[in-house]
């Protein structure tokens, strides 16, 4: 019987190597797999490359991982932490590398990785500092930037509901980057608020089909705080 649930965060994270590239879902305080991310601290992993829209939220999750010095490089569109200067200090001290990516390009690069597209052209960023050094090509008389797929060794995501095949739903704005990360990583690990019987999720409303999910931990933490 297929059963992707594992009983502990430690088991869920097993096998992620030092120096891994991690894709983190979430936008603002919503949809962050904070308990999985903090579980990484227990594993002793370091030298990580983290792909995330923000540099964390508050003092939890990615913000803690950054503070503990586990992140070598951040690939990010908006590397700020509400109410914290952890990232700014690391960056000013030269203790973290930053690859700044426009938000839509960040999403599309992960979507491309999940969909087997190694590279694509986008108009976003053409004619700006963020296109510097990149291949530019005109389509319909408009310059476009060649961008490459962004693949993760692991994705850590947060779901609202999950069944044992790994089918997931999200709650409202909790969807955000989570389905995109799920498809773009070699192993996808989800924390979920609710466990559902197989067959009880509406087949028309599954947001992440189980094919993209490897392990699930049930973490019913309640509403996001901010």
């Amino acid at each position, binding site marked *: 019987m297929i059963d992707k649930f594992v009983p502990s965060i430690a088991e869920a994270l097993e096998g992620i190597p030092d120096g891994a590239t991690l894709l983190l879902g979430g*936008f*603002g*305080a*919503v949809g962050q797999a904070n308990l999985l991310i903090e579980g990484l601290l227990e594993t002793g992993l370091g030298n990580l490359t983290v792909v995330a*829209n923000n540099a964390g939220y508050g003092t939890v999750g990615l913000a803690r991982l950054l503070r503990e010095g586990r992140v070598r490089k951040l690939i990010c*569109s*908006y*590397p*700020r932490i*509400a109410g914290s200067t952890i*990232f*700014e200090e690391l*960056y*000013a001290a030269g203790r973290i590398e*930053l690859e*700044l*990516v*426009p*938000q*839509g*390009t960040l*999403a*599309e690069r*992960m*979507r491309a990785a999940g969909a087997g597209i190694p590279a694509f052209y*986008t*108009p*976003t*960023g*053409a*004619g*700006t*500092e*963020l296109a510097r050094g990149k291949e530019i090509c005109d389509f319909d008389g408009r310059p476009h930037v060649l961008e490459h797929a962004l693949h993760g060794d692991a994705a850590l995501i947060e779901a609202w509901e999950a069944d044992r095949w790994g089918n997931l739903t*999200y*709650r*409202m*704005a*909790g*969807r*955000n*980057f*989570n*389905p*995109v990360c799920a498809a773009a990583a070699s192993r996808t690990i989800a924390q979920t608020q609710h466990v559902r019987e197989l067959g009880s999720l509406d087949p028309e409303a599954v*947001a992440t089909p189980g094919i993209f999910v490897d392990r699930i931990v049930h973490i019913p933490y309640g*509403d*996001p*705080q*901010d």
Partner: protein
Amino acid sequence: MTRTDWTPRSRSAIAARVAEDIPEGWYVNLGIGVPTLVADRVPEGREVIFHAENGILGIGPAPDPAAVERWLVNAGKQHVTLLPGGCYFHHADSFGMIRGRHLDLCVLGAYEVSAAGDLANWARSVGDTAPAVGGAMDLAIGAQRVWIAMEHVTRKGAPRLVERCSYPLTSPGCVKRIYTDLAVIDVTPRGFEVRDMVPGLTLAALQDMTDAPLALAVAPDALRMG
């Protein structure tokens, strides 16, 4: 200029002036700051559908503080509501809508706009502090129209409408119209053209606060004083 014969528009009045120009049925993304205020100033009974980068169409008014839904935030991480007819989707789909030119309008703030429509609104410089871009570049290239809502001059009195941007560009040539506290100005192939000004303001006085030539809009119905 110790005395003036005009009263600048308040932030809320700028937002109202923008809202007045949005026809029913448009799909609109609102940036952070003054643009966010536009949603509340759409004339009663006119249906406009607001989009947020983090995967929402059909954003409604701000929630009753006693009944905040913590899973529902907009791109500025503020709590919002969803109108009947609203829906959720993931980040790659959301930026597909943006990049794919499905939005009728995006209203953004800016540091500077040039007479060629170049937009600078993401960084005051490159490199000295941790830079952050978010979805600004995607919105600037993706929406059918980019309108800017901002103060006409900086706090120190320096012009924000300029011949050439001094700050790093968000996108070249993307701005179609600018709503300031003093005027509404189109960006045309001929440069800046004034559509309306606050009562009492003269073109000469406005020109003094603007770093590129201003002309009155040629279409007679386009110019409206007051």
